[in-house]
């Protein structure tokens, strides 16, 4: 059963005709071609697929599109505005928070959601906010630095 789902993605209103049981992650990657959002484990453990829905960081592999009607979704592709990088993106670059880069989009989206609610987080709050985003390359140090001083 195909249903029309209306969403706002990265500021654009879109209507998608889709099986409501399709995972949001697949809608993003396969239908909307927003491949910045990554799939690492498919069970909500690694956080590589994190996007921001209505201000909250969410694992897009655990959400089906039918749950998203009317939502406002931001993905990594939506952070750069008018050619200007988001301050988090800049500080991730400058602090060396990126190595292989596979966890980076999800990591930045978790940090983005944190800063939406708490513009001056402590180190512990940062650690907590990205505890669901695994990174195997960086040891998190430069990531935490980048979120601390964007």
């Amino acid at each position, binding site marked *: 059963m195909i249903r029309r789902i209306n969403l706002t993605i990265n500021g654009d209103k879109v209507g998608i005709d889709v099986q409501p049981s399709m995972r949001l992650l697949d809608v993003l*990657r396969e239908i909307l071609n*927003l*491949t*910045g*959002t*990554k*799939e*690492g*484990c*498919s*069970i909500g*453990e*690694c956080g*590589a697929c994190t996007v921001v829905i209505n201000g909250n960081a969410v694992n897009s592999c655990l959400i089906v599109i039918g749950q998203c009607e009317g939502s406002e979704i931001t*993905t*990594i*592709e939506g*952070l*750069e505005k008018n050619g200007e*990088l988001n301050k988090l*993106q*800049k500080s*991730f*670059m*400058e602090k*060396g928070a*990126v*190595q*292989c*880069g*596979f*966890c*980076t*989009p999800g990591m*930045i989206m978790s940090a983005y959601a944190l800063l939406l609610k708490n513009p001056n987080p402590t180190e512990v709050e*940062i*650690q*907590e906010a*990205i*505890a*669901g*985003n*695994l*990174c*195997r*390359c*960086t*040891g*998190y*140090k*430069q*990531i*935490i630095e980048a979120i601390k001083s964007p």
Partner: protein
Amino acid sequence: MSGDFNIVGRSVVRQDAYAKVTGQAKFADDYKFPGMLFGVMVRTDVSHALIHSIDYSGLLDYPEVTVCDINDIRGSRKVGVVTADQPVFCYEKIVTPGDVICMLVGADESQLKLLTAKVKTELEELPLITDPEKALDPDATFIHPDKKSNLIVHYPLRKGDVEKGFHESKHVIEQKYTTPLIEHAYLEPEAVTAVPIEGRGGVRIIGSIQNPHTTRRIVAEVLNFPLTKVRVVQAELGGAFGGKDDLMNIISARAAIAAIKTRRPVKVRYTREESVVESYKRHPYIMKYKVGFNDDGIIKAMKIDILADGGAYASMSPFVTWRTVVQATGPYEIENVHTDVRAVYTNNPYTGAMRGFGSPQPIFAQESLMDEIAEIIGVSPYEIRKINGVKPGSITASGHKLRDHDVNLLSVLERAERETNFTERHKECSRSANTKFQTSQKFRGSGFILKKDEMLDNRDIIKKGIGLAVSLRGCSLGAEGIDAAAAYLSVQKDGSAYLISGLAENGQGLRTTFSIIAAEVLGISPEHIYYLEQDTGIIADSGPTVASRSTIMGGSAVKNAAEIIKKRFEEMLLTYWNIKSKDQLLFKNNRVYEQSRSISFSELCSLAYSKGLNMSAIGWFKGPSVHWDEEKGQGAAYFTYVYGCQVAEVSANLLTGEIFVDRIVAVHDPGKIINLMGAKGQVFGGVTQGAGYALWEGITTYNGNIRENNFDQILIPTSKDIGEIESIFLEGEDIYGAWGAKSLGEPTLELTAAAIANAVKNATGLRYFNLPLNPEEILLSRKLSPNDLSRGSTN
């Protein structure tokens, strides 16, 4: 010295950072092609069996599905980087649960996954070998019958007379240490697409491939194609740590077979579970050490017997265990050494390359042992290492005299000691461990219930400890393999330049490091360098991107290429400016200066272009010769070495068994640092992986099957799991490497678990002989998993 550099040694933002923070970086699964099909693997549910038949009749109703199996292979049916023992599709035997018998190919990936159940196999199960210590029993079934033995490799090393050494020793101790199977846990699961090259009969492969030239060779062997007809392009790689080699070669070969058969692009992408079941892991080791020493602390003799579980296929076992035999005594000069390292086949998941590559295991053993020796003769862990550690001119266990570089073992050790006030704090912690830990013993084992009005004092529960570990590490491949690397630099007429080397960007930051090296030589900004996409069609085979060899090998090749071009520019300027000597020419800040005059680099290039100057060059670096006597295990194993010392400070919770790493101080001599930001990133990442190895990680198996198949059970460190990490670099000089730039990636990981284990001993008063030191181990001195078969010594 560092004042002489424009960029080298500073922190430079990665070239690929922009693409990666905006989501534009294209990883293997982000590629899509028109008409693309998917390939889905069919596996069995056994670990060891003969294959009698495979029945595809259940697929007759699905004509849209193509089956690829052994019958589609025109070339090699079995492949392997060292020994060709791994079938692309199994046809005789199943030897481990990851084995694949065929691949279903079609447009609908989820349909294919359901259809895998329709492939029926007739199997005859065989006795399992899951205990590596039983693999060489006379009655053991051969995993690979044609090998007529389950021994993959045996390396002996003999130096001096070990029995005489023990005879001359006042103290002789023996211990056994064990380490677990470890998953690389790169965040990106395997993915690859093979695309037929229309009209030329070749195939193009784009994937999460660590060593594109190795993949090319294996795919060409399987397809029976010349190397040139297989073009391997590396997608942005989402982490490898040694893990995207053998398996990626095989998956690429399967995708290529399907692409040729269907004449369509075929993508294979693994779920995390598939990745875990089929990918190789770090070797579990069983290590028996016997050491003789006297009251002066001097080690007279060391006898080592190491058994590595190679699992079902040889993979990199022969190379991994070779590094082990060279480095098993650690960075100590010991008169008499007798080492045997063996790797054996079992039905367990196969094991191969992983960051550290046969060093983290023996370092855990030998550094634990050094602390024991120190305790017996009553000196500090620092002192015992100072007494026995290698110095300039020392001779290693393999009889190699250390020279031509700063032998900085004692320098890194002293710096770490000073930075952490190690000796004093070690003494302090061990005093409190020995006294207060005993009083806490009453809480152990039986659990504890507080009586009314009874309070717990945190100081009785949380014990602090400090521990250290040191290493020497041979750079690059050593006598393991052919060691040479290429780089291509092509300067354009506007002053920008293309650069590529035959080594691959695996996330470590190689593109940036190499761009810095080329930019430094030409006196330009690294931003002017455009690093090309890794493609076997455009650059020479430079061996694998492993063994922390890219900076020392590829960096030298890049420097060579840039110097060739610089020399041509200099010669042109001699004529152009009518000067006699090029000594006055200075390439700096995107200009070339000669006394009062100068020319911008872009103008220089435009001029050179107009004069028809060749502004492209292939740089080459071949490692100096090394050699190895297989029988005695003697030789100059590596052409140079790096040194490191890590100190771990931990808090041990005696009620829960939890160990928290408060701080790691990592002092490394990687030679000259090229990109400081990248170097620090290597330390933070390596130390964190090492902490995981120490405290949480460990894949367990039953009958060869892996229990932990996703990140809900595979515990890798999170942002909350580790305290401070401090990185300190002592940049030793060396005649090799670009300005002496050597290796760092693996040294950062190999020391951490050993340092943490020593810190835990310091905190709790108890020594643990097997990894990981998880709460069960600390609290119960045993593990709860039912396969608790091979463990180290117990207290």
